[in-house]
């Protein structure tokens, strides 16, 4: 029988059929973060259990730590308690921690792939819904809840129901000013934020094959905003070249053996999907959200639709008017969606030699220490600083505000993150999701702007 990429990776992890459509799956990689990691590890011990496979478990501090230059942990006592707890409990359980101040700290979904912890065909879980990001390498990654974290720590397994499969094809070639973020926002706009509920999505087509690894990570990252717990891209030469030599990637003969298996993973040519959607990448303009759901997406040069009056009221917008030209207060370039080197390069290309509008506070928060240093080696930090952006320390920061960094009530922020929900970036904060290049263009213009006029 012809199988999909998803089927193959799923099948490779089934320990037991539990009946009723459920299976017990092996977890190859479990990532913990500071929001609940310390507490989960402590609770396992309190229940008289043990962390079954600590060498397959990795921890990092990202959600509650400050992103302020020079930070050493949380900016508040309540945050520091969580960081300290993660440190203590990781040490006690023998779990590897990528700590604040270390070379490998970063946002959990940035460092997993970056360090080669995530590999094609691995099953990756983390107590964070954006674990779907890892699917970009052909891994099966999904977010889990607090109870499931304990289950994974104690048993190295997870109980799951097999989802249906959907293939989203992006054909054509990306026009200037259009990036992976625009592709996925356009798809969410097309099928809706519940369109993927119950599915594992595979992204395919010429535009996906042409994307670099980091663009694919962005694409898979927003699968959950489509309602899908899982998003995947078939591994190919782009994946292998990107992965080779990374710290936890297989070496030598192991690499060759792994490669042979990885090459069997892509969906069989005659595999069928329960749902197929297609989008012409070549016809896309830069996308930006106008409402309080990622599905509220329009081309940056389009008019605000007459829909969802509550969302329009919350966002302080009027239907029928152009969104471009709307004055903004903040810009956030960062998050597990768009904080990698190629994202920063795209934003820097726009910002180079220009100035952030005086009334705008603009932040760049690299996704990891690795990204930050690589960007600094290229001088991107200087480009941003010269333009008036703040160059900050790696973490989740303004995407979710778990560390106390917030957008002020009523303020309008163009953000490269993943959620424009009511209150997501702070009570009454107004969020517009966009690509890093569009966010940079908006920072310079001081208003919502079409990045294409900044690109030669």
């Amino acid at each position: 029988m012809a199988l999909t990429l998803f089927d193959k990776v799923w099948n490779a992890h089934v320990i037991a059929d539990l009946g009723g459509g459920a299976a017990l799956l092996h977890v190859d990689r479990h990532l913990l973060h500071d929001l609940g990691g310390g507490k989960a590890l402590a609770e396992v011990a309190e229940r008289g259990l043990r962390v079954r496979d600590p060498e397959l478990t990795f921890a990092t501090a990202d959600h509650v730590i400050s992103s302020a230059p020079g930070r050493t942990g949380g900016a508040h006592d309540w945050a520091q308690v969580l960081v300290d707890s993660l440190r203590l409990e990781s040490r006690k359980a023998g779990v590897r921690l990528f700590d604040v101040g270390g070379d490998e700290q970063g946002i959990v979904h940035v460092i997993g792939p970056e360090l080669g912890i995530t590999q094609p065909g691995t099953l990756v879980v983390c107590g964070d819904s954006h674990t779907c990001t890892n699917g970009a390498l052909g891994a099966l990654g999904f977010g889990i809840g607090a109870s499931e974290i304990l289950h994974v720590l104690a048993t190295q397994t997870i109980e799951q129901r097999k989802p249906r499969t959907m293939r989203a094809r992006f054909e054509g070639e990306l026009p200037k000013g259009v990036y992976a973020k625009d592709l996925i926002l356009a798809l969410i706009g097309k099928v809706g934020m519940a369109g993927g509920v119950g599915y594992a999505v595979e992204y395919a087509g010429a535009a996906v094959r042409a994307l670099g690894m980091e663009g694919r990570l962005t694409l898979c990252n927003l699968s959950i905003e489509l309602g899908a717990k899982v998003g995947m891209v078939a591994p190919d030469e782009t994946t292998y070249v990107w992965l080779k030599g990374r710290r936890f990637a297989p070496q030598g003969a192991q690499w060759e053996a792994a490669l042979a298996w990885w090459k069997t993973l892509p969906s069989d040519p005659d595999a069928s999907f329960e749902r197929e959607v297609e989008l012409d990448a070549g016809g896309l303009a830069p996308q930006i959200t106008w409402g309080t759901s990622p599905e509220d997406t329009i081309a940056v040069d389009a008019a605000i639709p007459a829909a969802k009056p509550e969302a329009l009221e919350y966002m302080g917008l009027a239907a029928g008017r152009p969104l471009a030209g709307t004055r903004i207060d903040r810009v956030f370039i960062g998050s597990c969606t768009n904080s990698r080197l190629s994202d920063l390069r795209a934003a820097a290309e726009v910002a180079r030699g220009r100035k952030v509008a005086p009334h705008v506070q603009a932040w760049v928060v690299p996704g990891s220490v690795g990204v930050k240093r690589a960007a600094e080696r290229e001088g991107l930090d200087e480009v941003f600083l010269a333009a008036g952006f703040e160059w900050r320390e790696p973490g989740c920061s303004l995407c979710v505000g778990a560390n106390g960094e917030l957008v002020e009530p009523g303020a309008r922020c163009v953000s490269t993150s993943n959620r424009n929900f009511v209150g997501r970036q702070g009570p009454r904060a107004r969020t517009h999701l966009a690509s890093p290049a569009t966010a940079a263009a908006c920072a310079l213009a001081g208003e919502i702007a079409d990045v294409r006029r900044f690109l030669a």
Partner: protein
Amino acid sequence: MEKFIVLDATAAALPTPDVDTDLIIRIERCVRTPRAEMGRWAFEMARYRADGSEDPGFALNQARFHGAQILVAAENFGCGSSREMAVWAIAGMGFRCVIAPSFGEIFYGNCFQNGVLAIRLPAQAVDGLLKTLGAASAPARIRVDLPAQVVTGPDGKTHRFDIDSLRKTALLEGLDAIGMTLTREAEITAWQATDRKRRPWVWL
């Protein structure tokens, strides 16, 4: 985990689609509020006015919904973030059952981990329940019978629902998922031994 068998209780209606878990419980509460107090902060952005008083415009603040143990909600309820605190917050408000046409998948799974029964019913059936509850002038009851897999609305109409057998048994018997899986330790060990030969590069 607390058992769930039959629940005959007051029901509340929240007809807004795509209620996300950020809306159900703010991130600050996840970080700083003890679990036992989370119920008070469920839906806080919609539920309370700036002065801390209840906003009468928020559906669940209506007097006839007070003390409800069953929540009828709209499409894609609990989408977004994986925070299990969203379930703790709803359970903290007193809800033991949520009925909707569809759920955010991680939220749906989290419900069962906490003895909260999440029921998917066809959109038409949920619409009917939302309308009946919305139009009621006094508290209205819904009966949820898990062994029979039947929801009986305030109007007496019955709706059969699907639930996978594993989750049903776990709720009926109040089983602990970790304890259940630990009984399979030998299978896990055997699987890992085989996998070490099949995919040695995965093992660190």
